[in-house]
């Protein structure tokens, strides 16, 4: 998972200046979750990492006379971590872009890739270009060149971008039919097709991009040293050797290297518009998307809470009134749900069950959140039901009420009032937990914010806007609950 709340806080608290570093080490940042061929845990020794980026890092460290040390950083946090100085250089399939160049010290490109479309073999004839995918769902990684390309054609062709947090599930979901194409770089596409036999890559490149290393802006001197090392390695064939070893060498690379070594530059193909406009313009441009994402967060939370309340009430009633086996079964269920991470539950419902039933992402998110919170709600209701004095239940029994009537007329109304405050707390918590569903491709407020932040290269304004929107949703809720509590039941 790539959470940003904590990094954001740290960014705000700690100055972004690079911290002192032992000069004997080259700390390089990457995301081992990105997997082969970039960086991944060595299958033979999980404490080690392997991948072409590992070898590039070794090459750079050798040139600098240092020892490389790997620092694990989530892919979408790489820019912010580089700016903070969490590592000397970030190498993790980081794409060159004007936005990155404007806020970080960026090395010369050392690999050229093509953005290509991957489709199911049966669709190879009809889905050749993005224009063929009008109204279709096209998967990609968030905050990448491919995502920018998709956004650019979203308006023109009506393509629906679906963002993933990793590069494995876009391809498996394509095979399952959840999306109709994947747009990613050829390095990932080659791997995706190898893993999923029913898929093919379209030969035409949708775009061209480059991998670069990223450093904190004040590390320009180190960047220049790194550039010299890279240029030498392009000339003497050491980079070629690395990419040949990882079966990534192709005709595009010599062309790139000759351009670079002859003093030319490789301009990023898709200019991220953010680089040329101010942060405020970007904020205005992203506001509609953020508002829509906030709407999704609110809708998802409200529906999930409704489900949680209904399920929770049923579970609580079963535990209080049911026969012993029902009580034991429900208790075990509640403990299972409460004792395992929501994130895991979302993965199981969306990806794990995909071979049995392919739930749409929004429905899977709703079920995941609803089922998870139902466990917590049921505990609240159970406690509240048991808090209604037994004497009142005896009075109801003597008056001739059935157990169902006693529950409906005497016990539940009083329990509900007791449960109201904790329920409101849970709803506010659910609103925030709904950010987790971005892992199953639902773009809600937090995900949209992280895309925004990655695009403009700063968390400050997006973070503030995001926080204001969450508060705008949660504060009225708390007030509403207080009023209900005061005026209950009339």
């Amino acid at each position, binding site marked *: 998972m790539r959470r940003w709340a904590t990094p954001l806080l740290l960014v705000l608290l700690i100055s972004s200046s690079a911290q002192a570093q032992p000069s004997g080490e080259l700390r390089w940042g990457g995301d081992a979750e990105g997997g082969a061929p970039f960086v991944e845990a060595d299958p033979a020794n999980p404490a080690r990492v392997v991948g072409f980026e590992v070898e590039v890092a070794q090459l750079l460290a050798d040139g600098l006379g240092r020892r490389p040390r790997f620092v694990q950083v989530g892919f979408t946090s790489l820019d912010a971590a580089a700016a903070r100085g969490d590592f000397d250089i970030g190498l993790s399939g980081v794409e060159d872009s004007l936005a990155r160049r404007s806020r970080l010290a960026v090395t010369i490109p050392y690999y050229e890739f093509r953005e290509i479309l991957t489709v199911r073999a049966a669709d190879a004839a009809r889905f050749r270009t993005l224009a063929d995918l009008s109204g279709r769902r096209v998967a990609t990684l968030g905050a990448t060149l491919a995502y920018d390309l998709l956004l650019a054609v979203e308006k023109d062709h009506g393509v629906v971008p679906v963002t993933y947090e990793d590069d494995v599930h876009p391809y498996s979901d394509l095979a399952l039919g959840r999306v109709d194409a994947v747009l990613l770089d050829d390095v990932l596409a080659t791997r995706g097709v190898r893993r999923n036999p029913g898929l093919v890559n379209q030969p035409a490149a949708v775009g061209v991009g480059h991998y670069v290393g990223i450093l904190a802006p004040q590390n320009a001197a180190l960047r220049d040293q790194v550039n010299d090392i890279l240029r030498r390695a392009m000339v003497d064939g050491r980079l070629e050797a690395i990419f040949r070893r990882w079966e990534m060498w192709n005709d595009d690379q010599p062309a790139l290297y000759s351009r670079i070594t002859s003093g030319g530059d490789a301009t990023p193909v898709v200019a991220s518009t953010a680089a040329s406009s101010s942060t405020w313009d970007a904020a205005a441009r992203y506001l509609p998307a953020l508002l829509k994402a906030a709407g999704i967060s609110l809708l998802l939370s409200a529906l999930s809470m409704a489900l949680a309340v209904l399920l929770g009430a049923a579970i609580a009633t079963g535990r209080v009134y049911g026969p012993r086996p029902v009580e034991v079964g429900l208790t075990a269920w509640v403990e299972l749900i409460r004792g395992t991470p929501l994130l895991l539950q979302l993965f199981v419902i969306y990806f794990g069950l995909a071979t049995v039933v392919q739930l749409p992402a929004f429905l899977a998110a709703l079920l995941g959140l609803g089922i998870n919170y139902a466990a917590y709600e049921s505990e609240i209701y159970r406690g509240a039901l048991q808090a209604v*004095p037994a004497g*009142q239940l005896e009075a109801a029994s*003597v*008056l*001739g009420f059935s157990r169902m009537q006693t529950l409906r007329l*005497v016990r539940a109304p009083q329990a509900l009032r007791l449960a109201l405050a904790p329920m409101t707390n849970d709803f506010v918590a659910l609103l925030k937990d709904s950010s987790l569903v971005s892992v199953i491709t639902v773009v809600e407020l937090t995900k949209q914010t992280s895309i925004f932040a990655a695009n403009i290269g700063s968390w400050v304004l997006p973070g503030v806007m995001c926080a204001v929107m969450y508060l705008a949703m949660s504060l009225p809720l708390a007030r509403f609950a207080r009023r209900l509590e005061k005026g209950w039941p009339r």
Partner: protein
Amino acid sequence: MTPVLEVEDLSVTRNGQPVVHGVTFHAFRGERVALMGASGAGKTTVLRAIAGLEPQIGGAISVCRPDVFAVDDLGNPARRARTPRIGMVFQFHNLFEHLTALDNVCLAAVHVAGVPRRDAERQATALLEQLGVGHRTHARPHELSGGEAQRVAIARALAMKPLLLLMDEPTASLDPARRDDLAATVRDLSTDGTTILISTHDAPFASACVDRVLMMRDGHIVRDGRPQQVLT
């Protein structure tokens, strides 16, 4: 004359321990009976057993045949008749905290006896006025004094027109003046034929309002007679 209440060889067990055993007595229409004795003698338990609130009982209890409930082979009270013939006023009233006094009194009439709400409310208002709490109809239980709450609880029990009214330690939370009022209320209530069974350890109160006293000790009845005979 057929007794309204017949208790035959009643025994009550709690956690495997007998707390009441061999209790037999009858009570007739309009009769006011006090169950007396020291704390722990079993008087409240007998009341609760008659109200169907004790799960482990033996013997037989009937209220104005046919039986309000029989006792099955395991000693559990079988399903009670839908419309109760018994009303109970608990020591701590046990009013429904979320409802007004009026709604406390109406609730069972509407939902158990099926009386239309408008009629139930009219009857409830009349009952509350008769018991001297007509001005408190819209108060919630936590807004009532102990004496007011007790009278609302009595009204709630009477709204179901019980043949037998059980009252558990009714004077426990009353000052002496209120105790005299309650004694008068109890005497009034029986004039329309309601049988009243009161568990109490308050001898002056019992002398003032009951026809008969059953003295209990260690879970069974040791004396049965008029108050002036038993309470000497």
